[in-house]
């Protein structure tokens, strides 16, 4: 099977460790991963802010770059949801490649049929199910089932886990007061767990919640769950 990594623009520039983690997990499981360098951005920022026309060349570029692969994996629930939910409506010929685009946990659990990826991570971790993964992709228990198989991990439940963190893309900038109020509540719930690591499937949401946790020097580290699945205990 030809698997391609769609890194997403935010991860490429600010969170390369997440992409490296996805690559390592898949190679450890015996798969070859390709990274087509012609990729840019899925266009979600533009489309969801009201610039659909400007987003269209990015949609076309995604189809051109990824159409030949059997499976495309993106370490982002939100970008995957943009492709799977919006692409077929924006550009009907994109439906086929959109259906072959998976969030990491979908690829591992549904396509490759694994839940134990051979990871070890000795930390107390709480997991926030980000909205688009939760309600658009319906990831369900997939990420948590993967995390439960990690050796040494102590998973603790997050209160009000399914409530949005308040990021919402440009919402955080257009409605800073409401976004900040939602963030404060999410950070409080995270700190109540006593976890040392907050994991999620979206680095954009984690930049927001992690940025709030750092601001208050909470000592909680925000981490994409792929990085936990890639860990083997040696370096973590």
């Amino acid at each position, binding site marked *: 099977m030809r698997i391609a990594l769609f*890194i997403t623009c935010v*991860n*490429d*520039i*600010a*969170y*390369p*460790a997440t*992409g*490296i983690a996805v*690559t390592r997990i898949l190679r450890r499981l015996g798969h070859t991963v390709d*990274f087509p*360098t*012609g*990729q*840019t*951005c899925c266009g979600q*920022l*533009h*489309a*969801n*802010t*009201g*610039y659909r026309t*400007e*987003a269209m*060349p*990015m949609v076309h*570029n995604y189809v051109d*770059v990824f159409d030949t692969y059997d499976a495309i994996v993106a370490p982002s629930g939100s970008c995957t949801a943009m492709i799977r939910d*919006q692409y077929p409506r924006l550009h009907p010929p994109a439906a086929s490649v959109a259906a072959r685009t998976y969030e990491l946990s979908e690829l591992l659990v549904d396509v490759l049929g694994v839940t134990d990826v051979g990871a070890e991570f000795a930390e107390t971790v709480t997991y926030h199910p980000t*909205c*688009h993964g939760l*309600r*658009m992709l319906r990831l369900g228990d997939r990420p948590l089932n993967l995390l439960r198989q990690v050796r040494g991990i102590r998973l603790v439940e997050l209160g009000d886990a*399914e*409530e*949005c963190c*308040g990021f*919402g*893309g440009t*919402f*955080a*900038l257009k*409605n*800073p*007061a*409401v*976004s*900040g*109020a*939602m*963030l*404060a509540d999410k950070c409080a719930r995270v700190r109540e767990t006593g976890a040392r690591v907050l994991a999620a499937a979206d680095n954009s949401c984690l*930049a*927001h919640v*992690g*940025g709030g946790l*750092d*601001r208050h020097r909470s000592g909680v580290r925000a981490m994409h769950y792929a990085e936990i699945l890639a860990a083997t205990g040696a370096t973590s």
Partner: protein
Amino acid sequence: MNRPAVDRSGTGGAVAPATGGGRIRTPLPFPTMAARAVADTQLRANLHRATRTIRAKRARVVDEVPDWQALRDAGAAIKADVQRRLPELLEQFEASATAAGATVHWARDAAEACRIVVELTRAAGAEEVVKVKSMATQEIELNEALEAAGIAAYETDLAELIVQLGEDTPSHILVPAIHYNRAQIREIFQRRMPDAPADLGDEPSALAEAARAHLRRRFLSARVAVSGANFAIADTGTLVVVESEGNGRMCLTLPETLISVVGVEKLLPTFTDLEVFLQLLPRSSTGERMNPYTSMWTGVTPDDGPQDVHVVLVDNGRSAVLADPVGRPALSCIRCSACLNVCPVYERAGGHAYGSVYPGPIGAILSPQLTGVADNASLPYASTLCGACYDACPVKINIPEILVHLRQQAPHPVAEKATMRVLAWVMRSPRRWAAVLRLARVGAGPLGAYRERRSGARTLRRLPWPASAWTRSRDLPLPAPQTFREWWEKQ
């Protein structure tokens, strides 16, 4: 005036359908209003407690219905059918209701609807009306119009009464006084209700009893009642009001004249369609299996109840909504408020921030469509697109999809437009994107290294406007020492 306000072509026809008037416009942009609400700690505490209580109740009674998803599908399908043949169903309703003894009036907009109700009240020789809780009359600002005509309008729903006595506006579709706690309600009653007991306590039962005594005289003396309707049945001409307190039943049965203001989207084709909606509505709104009072009336019943029955069918922008195939499902709304109660933005901002009688997620898609998006441009952005509203909606309105659709029509700030265009120009070219990634990484390199030495993290803590919108609540990550594609190429 006896002709449908709804355009028959379904496409808007030669002339674009008119936009609506009344209380459906934000006086100030949502972010400004919401920031004030967020700063009000009492308001946030009241909303937090109330929305979470109703949310939990709704979840309990929805979870116990095995065919809930099938009911939602049925509700959505019936409403979609109504929207496809609205002009025909409206004429059928008019014929059925007229045959049963009601008089049907057609109102193009809020002003015309108010004028009709004022004229009918005057013709009945009344100087006051009692009111059943109704979103349509709040939308068209009927109380204000009646007052201007020298007619007193008395709200009889407990929460509407609180809001009216407090000279406030509703902040929730189902629970208009959700922004008050009981101590605040006692204070309003003591200040504004002349017959409130001197030793009034703030227990819910004491507050309800004071309101009950206060309202009883109004029910017995009123000659005209004004209501809305939850449903209007085309094949029988029946109107339906669903309520909890029994005040509605009093208003609908005691006065001689009954005037009902009904949005044209409230139609259902047949009486049996109620079977679906009377299951969906109470569980979604109050979190009850069944609401205490369901009143239905079909024109005039001789010697029983009001003998002079009027129905005012209001368009007020709804034809414009109908003309947009993507935005149209907003007309399926049954005003249950489930989307408000699950919305994390509504919970922090409160209803007044939306500036319209329709707050929360449904308001964010309905108000801009009724007025035209340019008049309510901040509302489609009053959401994180988290999708909780779509999951809760009993008629499956895809609110996030419509929000994104309306954002395409909203006027964009000049600086934002320029930034977005430059970014899109970069991102549509793999070569330019790779170059910009490298440039950002190199440019931010020294700053990132400095911040890492100083604070142990490659983040910024304080930036000038407009980036301050981010850094006032959270640190901002800087580009990593190497981009992913650089790592990929090196390995």
